[in-house]
């Protein structure tokens, strides 16, 4: 069996609400091996995004533990943000003042690359996502599909072993969504990355190797 790149044990997350504590996740277990793609579907408000944030280290569970592969050891994802795992968000989350190239290069610079290295890596990634010609454009001048491709390039620029995608096609029309998803899956496959994809789409979920539904705070194989 391939090496694990993500391991989550008994993840529990409780939010406070006016009607009392709301337990969104109730002991979720998940293991993702290198090169394996996983999809998670679920109703709105079921906790898909919360789970993805816990898996990526953007939030901390109330109980349970998450670890991601960093080199040869498993570490807390919060310690390796932007390096061991890349994120693609539904709303792209690009810096509005930076152009496409700068947005991608910024992630590389934060990871410790020099300006020249970051720029070179960003240019290569933008070439791969088909945006080399639009690298100097600001996000406001790019279409939704182009913005998501920039966000994908940014997520991959530090060569993570794991890609976490939160409804990456949620804001796109059907045709653009299909293009972006094809690109995402082909890049993941070409690089041998593990993928955790949160989506509403049964169609896109069916293209992953392991499929789950988040229901009642637990993951159920689909």
């Amino acid at each position: 069996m391939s090496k694990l790149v993500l391991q989550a044990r008994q993840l529990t997350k409780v939010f406070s609400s006016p009607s009392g504590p709301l337990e969104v996740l109730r002991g979720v277990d998940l293991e993702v091996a290198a090169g394996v793609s996983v999809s998670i579907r679920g109703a709105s408000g079921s906790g898909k995004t919360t789970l993805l944030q816990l898996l990526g280290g953007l939030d901390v569970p109330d109980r349970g533990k998450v670890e991601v592969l960093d080199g040869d050891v498993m570490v807390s994802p919060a310690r390796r943000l932007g390096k061991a795992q890349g994120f693609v968000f539904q709303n792209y989350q690009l810096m509005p003042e930076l152009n496409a190239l700068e947005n991608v290069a910024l992630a590389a610079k934060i990871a410790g690359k020099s300006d020249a290295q970051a720029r070179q890596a960003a240019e290569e990634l933008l070439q791969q996502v088909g945006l080399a010609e639009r690298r100097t454009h600001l996000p406001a001048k790019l279409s939704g599909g182009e913005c998501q491709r920039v966000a994908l390039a940014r997520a991959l620029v530090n060569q993570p072993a794991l890609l976490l995608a939160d409804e990456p096609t949620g804001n796109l029309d059907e045709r653009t969504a299909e293009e972006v998803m094809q690109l995402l899956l082909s890049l993941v496959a070409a690089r041998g990355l593990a993928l955790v994809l949160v989506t509403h789409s049964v169609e896109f979920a069916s293209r992953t190797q392991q499929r789950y539904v988040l229901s009642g705070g637990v993951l159920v194989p689909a």
Partner: protein
Amino acid sequence: MVSILGVGLGVASLLVVQTVMNGFGEEHRLRIRESFGDCVIVGQRPLEQPEKLLQTLRADSAVSSATSYAEGPALLRQGDYSAVAAVRGIEVGDLHQPARNYVVLGAFDDLDDGRVILGLGLARQLRVRVGDHVELWSPAMAERAEKGKAPLPADFEVCAILRTGFTEVDDRAALIPLRRFQALWNLGPRAHGLILRLKDPAKAPDTADRLSIGRSGLRFVPWQELKKNFLEAIRFEKTMLFFLMFIITLVASFSIGSTLFSAVIRRTREVGVLVAMGAQRWQIIALFGLQGWLIGALGILLGFILTWLILFFREGILGAINHTFGDGDMVANIYQFSKVPLHYDAHDFIIAAAFTLLVTTLAGLVPALWAARRKPSEAMRDV
């Protein structure tokens, strides 16, 4: 931009006030020294043998010059115009006499027993120019009249007119030779006091203490003591104004804090994204802290430029204020200077810059700390 302007105005107001107050203080100190000397020696009665004491004092290593003087009020008259003057008898040969520097018409060296030097304001009151004559009535002449003898005024030709810029002096001063003063006031060879000019005026109190040893009948008054209350008032005024201006700068700094806080809140989502990309907390803090520091640094630079501009055009600005509010020349009337004095003190500039930089950096750091402590998942939910 507005934040930088706010800091700039705060710094400029602080420095303009401090520089002008320093100028007033320095000018007053200089005028006091030039009008009264670095150290004045007086007794309970007029000094009987001033020449002997002068010789001893001139030999002292701390003394650069010593001269005797006498002074008193007199009535000056020219035709239908008259004025009360503060007449001072001075040693004509004294090359250190500061009045030499302030002669604007005529020549100081023309002063002799038949001539007088008048302040510009006094000359205007009497409607006299250089070469005109004035009559001088001394109190001794009144005594003469009381004894039944006909008093005769002394006649003087105006040989020079001086303008110190110190209205109190210019409107009242009349300088005549000491010898003539002694005759008109029936002083004989006596003098009212001695004036010392010192090589280091700042050390006047120590020098005065040392020189007074063994001369118990005399009082040695350093220039710092001559108008002590006045100088204290200026110092107090400067401190109070610094305090008020400090509050203005503080208010400007709070406005920066609120601007930066708004900026951080507006960019909360981006802060979340930066953290998601791996940015460390200290990098987020540094980013916004640096923004506050940069606003402070640019504000200080702007404040320095504004300070220089305001002070360079101060006469025009003051003239416009006087013209608008119709208060006349306030500087001349109230502060007795012909123009607003300045004294740039590097110490004030360093303190203002350091304080402003500290406050603006802190104003940036507080929201930065808040932003950096937020979880990226929460931050990215904000728009």
